[in-house]
């Protein structure tokens, strides 16, 4: 609240008149002030100015809009395609209620995530990926925050869990020690070998199961590993909004986390 009215008429504080105009004041005070300002041209001029502001703002809301810039709309389309693929594609987690018997989407639904995410933020991923080997070779220790691992229970259809199935193209799992995840980053690099998770959809399922937004996650590399002897799949991610850091998630085929750490400079 601002100045009190001095005398029966102004001078009036602009803030007081704005409060009156916005209905901030209690009804009795408001009624009294309206009676006064309505007979005061100077006060009315201020109120007209405030009303003019409201009118301009209202016009802004009703005005024709500019189209969403192409680079952003393309990114949005890619993310929604990814979501549609997850929802309607075969065996993925977020299925709509009546999806049984739904035909798989045609191939126009691109294999998602890595490509469209790589487009995001103009090469930030590429820049990071390029620096990974260097970082690892230099044995740069990146400190990682262990996140609580909560599984949402909706993410893992049993049919999608195929323990022991390393998928096509898998190589011998990389042996990794829990205390040596920084060095493992350099060995995984930008490879995309999903191992027991089979494909990007399988990885996305595990990301969600570990409270990571699969729609925005930027995956740098994926590789089957054994972490201190336990088989799993290691994924390197760029944590959103944390430049200079990497997130290492190691999960079992059922998405149970073995390691989940943010390694940062």
């Amino acid at each position, binding site marked *: 609240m601002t100045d009190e009215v001095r005398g029966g008429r102004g001078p009036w504080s602009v803030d007081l008149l704005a409060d009156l105009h916005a209905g901030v004041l209690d009804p009795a005070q408001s009624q009294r002030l309206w009676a006064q300002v309505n007979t005061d041209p100077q006060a009315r001029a201020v109120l007209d100015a405030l009303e003019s502001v409201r009118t301009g703002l209202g016009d802004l809301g009703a005005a024709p809009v500019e189209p969403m810039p192409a680079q952003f*709309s393309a990114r949005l389309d890619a993310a*929604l395609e990814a979501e549609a693929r997850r929802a309607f594609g075969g065996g993925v987690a977020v299925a709509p209620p009546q999806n049984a018997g739904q035909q798989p989407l045609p191939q126009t639904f691109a294999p998602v995530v890595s490509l469209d995410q790589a487009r995001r933020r103009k090469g930030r991923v590429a820049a990071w990926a390029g620096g990974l080997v260097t970082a690892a070779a230099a044995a740069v220790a990146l400190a990682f925050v262990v996140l609580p691992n909560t599984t949402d229970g909706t993410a893992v259809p049993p049919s999608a869990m195929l323990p022991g199935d390393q998928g096509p193209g898998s190589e011998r799992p990389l042996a990794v020690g829990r205390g040596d995840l920084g060095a493992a980053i350099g060995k995984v690099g930008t490879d995309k070998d999903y191992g027991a998770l089979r494909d990007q959809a399988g990885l996305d399922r595990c990301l969600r199961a570990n409270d990571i937004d699969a729609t925005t996650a930027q995956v740098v590399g994926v590789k089957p590993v054994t972490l201190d002897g336990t088989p799993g799949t290691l994924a390197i991610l760029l944590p959103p909004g944390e430049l200079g850091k990497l997130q290492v998630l190691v999960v079992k085929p059922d998405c149970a986390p073995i390691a989940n750490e943010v390694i940062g400079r």
Partner: protein
Amino acid sequence: MTAAASSDADLIAAHAAGDPRAFAEIVRRHRDRMWAVALRTLRDPEEAADALQEAFISAFRAAGSFRAESQVTTWLHRIVVNACLDRVRRRQARPTVPLPETGPGEPVTPRDAMSERETKLVVQTALRELSDDQRVPILLVDVEGYSVAETAKMLGIAEGTVKSRCARGRAKLAKVLGHLRNPDADANVPGSAVDGRGVPTRRQREGR
């Protein structure tokens, strides 16, 4: 179904029933309007794009719970606004961007000399002068048309706080937009302060 000829509600129902293309049509119809909402609220295009993506993904997943009695646009709008508000809350500490061209109280080009587009740009620019605390309630109430009660609920603050922040924000905008020549004076605004051009007949709208 022929998506282009369907109503929004039909498309939502088709999406919930498993039509993989129905939601894309919803997005195509509403994307630009929602983009404007996100950009106004967040100001930063990159952040607005991220918020809009989050919102549409959220809507995609929640479409099954959409109630047909409400408008799809209203439902979508609310989801977009909430996604933006989440981001505003996360960045509360960020300083506001000052106006580069005009200082507070400095008159701008007379309204009647502007095209509609110029007026829109001036108002958008003036909004950048406000802190998030003032700008967001004003956007929700005055631009997007939410009631004070709805705005208070969305922001998690009292209705009186919404009104007060709107009042402060409008007073500042009146100064920035040049409607008040002597904005810092504590009262008697000179008669010449408001030139009368473009000023509508006053309606005593005390909040909504």
